[in-house]
C-alpha cells in the first residue's frame, strides 16, 4: 500500500516538473494551462441550447412507440389538438412527403441493406422510443400533457432482440430485405497455415454489451426561420456535417441553412449524428413559421440517443509453444439496431484494423456481419470499434498467457513491435509511425509495484483468502486522428477527413482563430490558444477561438475520433505559418531589408545581425493602416489552411489494474490503477490528464457497471439512472498516471490524440484483473459488466463444474 502511495506521489511530481520545464522556456505548448473556457462552462453562464429563449418560442414533445415492432394502423391527433396551449399536432403521415430518410454516410459494402429511415414513423415502428407523433405547444409542460390525448393503434409484430436469433431462418424480419445488413471481410496472410502449424489455439467469445452514452447535457434543438432562411441550434458535435446532411435531407438549400453548436456539454460520439429530432424541428418550424425548441429528458435520452458497442466477438488466436503469435481470426456480429444511422455500419470497421493490437503476426482474418434487431440503432461511442477490438485481443492474449503458463507481460514482450522496428507495417496493413511499448510498460510496472503485487496474489491464493487479488494488463494501441480522406474513401465513407482553420491578426495585435473542430468539453479554446501563442509569439490571453457556427466557421469536419488536435490543431499551425510569412513581408518592407534576412522569435521580426526589429503587433497595425506596404501586398494579416493527414495516429500505452474480488459476495474493488500513456507530444498536460481520467472512468464503467438491458419484447429496462448505473467519483479508484512521449512523425506537432485512449485501454485491464483473480477457481471469463451477481454466478458455476469433474474421476 505504502509503495503504491509513494509511486503515485512520484508520478505526480514528474508531472509538475513537466509543467515547470514547459513554462521555463517561455513556450506555451507543454504548459499545464487551466482551461480558459471552464469558468463559463462550469458555472453554466453560457449559451447551452436549452438556455436559448426566442420571442414566440414553441415547445415540441414527441410521442414515442411503446412497442419494439408494430404496424401503425391509426393515429388520431384530433383530441390532442384541442388541449390547452396546443398549437399543432403532427403524425408521421403529416410529414411523409417531405421528411425524407435519415442519412447513413457509411454504406460499407455495395450490397448493404440500407433501409428507409423516416424521422417520424409512418407505417411501422421498429424500436421502443421511435417517434410516431409530436405536439407543439406554448410550453413544455402543456406539450407533454397533450401527448396522452393522441391515439395510436398498433398491430403488434414480433420483436427481434438477439443477434444470433435474428440471423436464423424464419426469424421475424426487421426489414423486408432481412436481418443481415452486410458482411464485410478482410484478410491478410495465410491464415490457414498460421492455424494449421500452431502449437496452441485458443477460441473465445466475448460480448460487448450495449451501452448508453450519457453526456451530461441532454440533446436539445432550437429551430427558427425568417421565412426564407433557417437557423438550427443543436447540442451536436458536428455542426458542419449536420448542415450538409440537413440540406440534403430537407431540401433547404445549404446557403439558406445556418447550424450552430453553442457550448455543448459532452457527446462521447452520441452527438455525432443527424437525429430525427433535428430534422423534425426544422420541418415543424418550416410548417408553422415559428421558432420551436425540443429538449430531451434523461429517460427519453436513454431510449433514443443512439446506443454504443453491441457486438458479439468470436476470436481465435494461434501461437507457437514459446508464445509467438501466428495469427488471429475474428468473426464479428455487429448489432445495428433497427436502422443504419450516420456511421452505424462503419463502427466495426474502425476496429477491423486493430485486432492485431501492438503485436506482430503472420496472418489475420476478419469477418463482420451487421445485424438488424428491433432496438435503438447503435453508432459511434467513445472509441467506436477500437475499444471492442482492443478488448478482444488484450483479453485473449491474457488467456494465451494462462494457457502457456507464462507471465502476461512476458508474453506481450515476445510479440510486440520493438521500438527499433518503427515505422512498422502491421499485418492489417497500417503503418504505425512511432511507439515505444518497452518504455511505457517498464514505467507502468515500476509505478504499479508489479512483483510485489504478484507475491501478495500468491500469498492470498495460498491462504485461500476469501478476497482474491487479480492483476490485469492492457497494452493497447489505437488508430485515431480521423483521418486520411483517401483511406476513408477506400472504406466507402461518404466524406473526407481533413480539417480547416483560419487565423486572423486584428489591428491591435490580438488574434482570432476560427476552427472547424467543434469542442464539447475538450478544451480547444485553451489548446488552440497555446499553439497560436507559440506560433505567432503573442500572449496566450490575446487569442480567441471561434467555433461551432457555420456562419462564422464556414468549413469544418468537426470533432470525434480523437481528431481535433491531430488534424485541426495542425491546420491551425499551418494557418499561423501563412500569417507569419505575410507578416515577414511587411516587416522586411518596413525595415528595408530582404525577407530572407528577417528572423522571427517570440513575436518579434528582427533584421539578422542588427538591433532593428518590429513586433507582430506593430506589423498588425501597419497592415491595418496599409499606408506603407510592399507593392501588390494585400492588406490583410490572416490566412486559412486545410490539413488532410497522410496517416492515422497511433497513441499507445500500458495500463495495469489490481482488483480485489470478494469471492463470497462477488464484489470487485479496484485497488490500484496505473496508466502510462504515450500520446506523443503534449500541448497541455492538464487537458491530457483530464482526458485520461475521464476515459479510464468510462472504460471501467463498461467493465463493471453499464449495460442497456432489454426484455424479450424489446423493451428497454434501463431507462433511468437508477437502473443504468454510471459510476461516480465515489465508485472509482485514484489513478496513478504518467506518460512517455514518443512524438508522432506524421504531423508537425508530434501529437497523437488522447480523447479515446483511456476508454480503449481500461476495459480489458479491469476484466483481465477480475479473471486473473478467479483463475485458480477455474474461471476463464466473466461477461461484462462484471457485476457482483455475475461474478458470484460464474464462481458458483465453476465450483459446480469442478465438483462434477472430480466426481467423474
Amino acid at each position, binding site marked *: 500500500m505504502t509503495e503504491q502511495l509513494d509511486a503515485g506521489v512520484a508520478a505526480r511530481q514528474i508531472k509538475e516538473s513537466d509543467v515547470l520545464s514547459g513554462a521555463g522556456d517561455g513556450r506555451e505548448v507543454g504548459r499545464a494551462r487551466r482551461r480558459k473556457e471552464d469558468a463559463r462552462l462550469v458555472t453554466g453562464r453560457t449559451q447551452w441550447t436549452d438556455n436559448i429563449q426566442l420571442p414566440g418560442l414553441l415547445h415540441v414533445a414527441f410521442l414515442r412507440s411503446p412497442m419494439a415492432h408494430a404496424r401503425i394502423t391509426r393515429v388520431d391527433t384530433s383530441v390532442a389538438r384541442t388541449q390547452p396551449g396546443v398549437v399543432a399536432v403532427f403524425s408521421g403521415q403529416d410529414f411523409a412527403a417531405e421528411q425524407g430518410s435519415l442519412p447513413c454516410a457509411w454504406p460499407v459494402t455495395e450490397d448493404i441493406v440500407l433501409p428507409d429511415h423516416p424521422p417520424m414513423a409512418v407505417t411501422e415502428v421498429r424500436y421502443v422510443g421511435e417517434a410516431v407523433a409530436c405536439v407543439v405547444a406554448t410550453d413544455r*409542460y402543456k406539450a407533454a400533457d397533450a401527448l396522452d390525448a393522441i391515439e395510436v393503434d398498433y398491430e403488434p409484430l414480433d420483436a427481434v432482440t438477439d443477434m444470433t436469433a435474428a440471423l436464423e431462418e424464419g426469424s421475424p424480419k426487421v426489414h423486408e430485405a432481412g436481418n443481415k445488413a452486410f458482411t464485410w471481410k478482410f484478410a491478410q496472410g495465410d491464415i490457414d497455415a498460421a492455424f494449421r502449424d500452431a502449437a496452441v489455439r485458443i477460441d473465445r467469445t466475448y460480448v460487448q454489451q450495449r451501452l448508453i452514452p450519457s453526456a451530461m447535457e441532454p440533446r436539445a434543438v432550437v429551430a427558427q426561420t425568417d421565412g426564407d432562411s433557417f437557423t438550427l441550434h443543436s447540442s451536436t458535435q458536428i455542426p458542419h456535417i449536420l448542415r450538409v446532411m440537413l440540406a440534403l435531407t430537407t431540401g433547404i438549400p445549404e446557403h439558406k441553412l445556418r447550424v450552430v453548436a453553442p457550448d455543448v456539454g459532452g457527446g462521447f460520439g452520441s452527438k455525432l449524428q443527424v437525429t430525427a429530432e433535428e430534422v423534425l424541428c426544422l420541418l415543424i418550424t418550416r410548417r408553422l413559421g415559428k421558432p420551436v425548441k425540443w429538449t430531451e429528458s434523461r429517460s427519453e435520452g436513454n431510449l433514443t440517443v443512439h446506443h454504443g458497442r453491441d457486438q458479439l466477438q468470436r476470436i481465435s488466436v494461434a501461437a507457437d509453444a514459446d508464445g509467438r503469435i501466428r495469427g488471429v481470426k475474428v468473426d464479428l456480429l455487429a448489432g445495428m439496431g433497427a436502422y443504419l444511422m450516420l456511421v452505424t455500419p462503419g463502427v466495426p470497421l474502425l476496429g477491423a484494423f486493430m485486432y492485431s493490437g501492438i503485436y506482430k503476426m503472420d496472418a489475420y482474418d476478419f469477418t463482420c456481419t451487421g445485424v438488424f434487431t428491433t432496438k435503438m440503432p447503435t453508432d459511434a461511442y467513445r472509441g467506436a470499434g477500437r475499444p471492442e477490438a482492443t478488448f478482444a485481443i488484450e483479453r485473449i492474449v491474457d488467456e494465451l498467457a494462462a494457457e502457456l503458463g507464462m507471465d502476461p507481460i512476458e508474453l506481450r514482450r515476445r510479440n510486440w513491435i520493438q521500438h527499433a522496428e518503427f515505422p512498422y507495417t502491421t499485418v492489417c496493413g497500417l503503418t504505425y509511425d512511432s511507439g515505444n511499448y518497452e518504455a511505457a510498460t517498464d514505467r507502468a510496472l515500476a509505478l504499479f509495484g508489479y512483483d510485489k503485487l504478484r507475491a501478495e496474489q500468491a500469498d492470498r491464493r495460498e491462504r485461500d483468502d476469501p478476497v482474491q487479488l487479480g492483476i490485469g494488463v492492457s497494452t493497447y494501441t489505437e488508430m485515431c486522428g480521423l483521418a486520411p480522406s483517401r483511406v476513408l474513401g477506400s472504406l466507402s465513407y461518404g466524406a473526407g477527413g481533413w480539417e480547416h482553420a483560419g487565423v486572423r491578426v486584428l489591428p491591435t495585435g490580438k488574434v482570432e482563430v476560427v476552427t472547424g473542430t467543434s469542442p464539447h468539453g475538450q478544451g480547444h479554446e485553451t489548446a488552440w490558444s497555446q499553439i497560436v501563442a507559440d506560433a505567432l509569439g503573442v500572449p496566450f490571453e490575446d487569442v480567441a477561438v471561434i467555433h461551432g457556427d457555420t456562419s462564422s466557421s464556414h468549413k469544418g469536419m468537426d470533432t470525434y475520433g480523437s481528431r481535433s488536435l491531430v488534424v485541426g490543431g495542425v491546420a491551425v499551425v499551418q494557418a499561423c505559418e501563412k500569417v507569419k510569412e505575410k507578416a515577414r513581408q511587411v516587416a522586411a518592407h518596413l525595415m528595408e531589408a530582404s525577407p530572407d534576412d528577417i528572423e522571427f522569435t517570440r513575436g518579434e521580426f528582427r533584421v539578422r545581425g542588427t538591433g532593428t526589429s518590429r513586433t507582430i503587433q506593430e506589423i498588425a497595425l501597419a497592415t491595418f493602416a496599409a499606408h506603407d506596404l510592399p507593392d501588390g501586398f494585400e492588406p490583410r494579416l490572416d490566412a486559412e489552411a486545410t490539413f488532410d493527414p497522410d496517416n492515422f495516429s497511433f497513441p499507445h500505452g500500458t495500463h495495469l489494474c489490481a482488483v480485489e474480488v470478494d469471492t463470497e*459476495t462477488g*464484489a470487485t474493488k479496484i485497488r490500484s490503477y496505473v496508466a502510462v500513456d504515450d500520446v506523443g507530444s503534449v500541448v497541455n498536460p492538464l487537458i491530457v490528464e483530464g482526458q485520461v481520467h475521464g476515459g479510464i472512468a468510462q472504460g471501467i464503467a463498461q467493465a463493471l457497471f453499464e449495460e442497456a438491458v432489454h426484455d424479450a419484447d424489446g423493451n428497454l429496462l434501463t431507462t*433511468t439512472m*437508477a437502473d443504468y448505473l454510471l*459510476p*461516480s467519483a465515489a*465508485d472509482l479508484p485514484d489513478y496513478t498516471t504518467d506518460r512517455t512521449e514518443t512524438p508522432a512523425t506524421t504531423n508537425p506537432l508530434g501529437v497523437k490524440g488522447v480523447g479515446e485512449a483511456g476508454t480503449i485501454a481500461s476495459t480489458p485491464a479491469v476484466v483481465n484483473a477480475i479473471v486473473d483473480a478467479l483463475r485458480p477457481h477455474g474461471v476463464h471469463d466473466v461477461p461484462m459488466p462484471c457485476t457482483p451477481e455475475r461474478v458470484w*454466478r460464474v464462481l458458483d458455476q465453476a465450483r459446480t463444474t469442478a465438483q462434477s469433474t472430480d466426481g467423474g474421476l
Partner: protein
Amino acid sequence: MIPASFDYVRPSSLDEALETLRDQGEDAKVLAGGQSLLPLLRLRLAYPGTLVDVGRVKELRGVADRGDHILIGAMTTHYDIVTSPIVREHCPLVALATATVADPAVRHRGTLGGSLAHADPAGDLPAVARALDMEFVVRSADGERVIPAADFFLDYLETALDPGEILTGIRVPKLGPGWGFHYEKFHRTAQAWAIVGVAAAVRRSNGTIEEARVALTNMGPTPVRATAVEEAVRGAELGAGGVLRAAASRADEDTHPPADLHARPDYRRHLARVLTHRALLAAAGTT
C-alpha cells in the same frame, strides 16, 4: 423535470398542513425532502392533485432527548441526523445507516420521516426502524396516535398512515449500555439503493451475545426482522466463530426477496446470509 400538473401548497404550521390534508383527502400528497417523491413525479408514476410541502413546518425538525428515548422530528434531514450528538450518543445505528444513504446532496435534502413514510424496502432506514423498534408518532386533524415500527410497514410503498395523517416524529428507544451496532450495506454504486442491507444490534456480556436484533433491507416488500438469526445467536460465545456463521445462514428464512436488474432472489438470499454474518461480527466488535 416535466411532471403532470398539480396544485402546490406550503403551509407554515402543522395544523395548517393537517387541515389541508383533511380537505384534499386522498388526492393530496405530503412533500418532505422530495428525494423519493420528485423522481416519481418526474416519471409521471405519481399524479397527486395537491402537493403539501411541509418544508416550512419548523416544529417537525430537530432531535430531542426524552429520557428513555430520543425523538427525531420527521422533517429532520439525514445530514442533521448524522451530525446530531444526541443521535450519535444514544442511537449510533441510526447515524451509521443514515450516513450510507445516497450522496451528500440527497442527505442534505432528504428526511428521516420522508424516507420512512415512503416505505421503500430498498431504503436503508426502514430496516433500522424495525431493528430498533422505533415508534412512529402520527397526527391528523382528529388527533395523535403512535404506531410501532412492526405495524407501520404494510407492503411495498404502503404504510399504516391514513389519508389525512402526517408522520410528525419518530421515537427511537435508547438501548442502554453493552450494545454494539453495524449497518452492512451492499450496493453497486455509492448512490445506488441497497441490493441487500443488514442492520444489526448486539448486546454483549462476558464474552457471549445476550441479545441481538437483526433487520434486513430489500429482502421483501417490507423491511423484515431476521428472527431466526436473533434466536440462534442468543447466548452464543463470541470466540466461537462458527456459531455466528451458522446463525447468519438462517437470515433469509421467511423472506421474499425481489427480482430486479441488480439481483435475482437466490443471490439476494445468499447475500443476506453473508452480510448478516459480517454485520453480526462487526456489531459484536470482533472485526
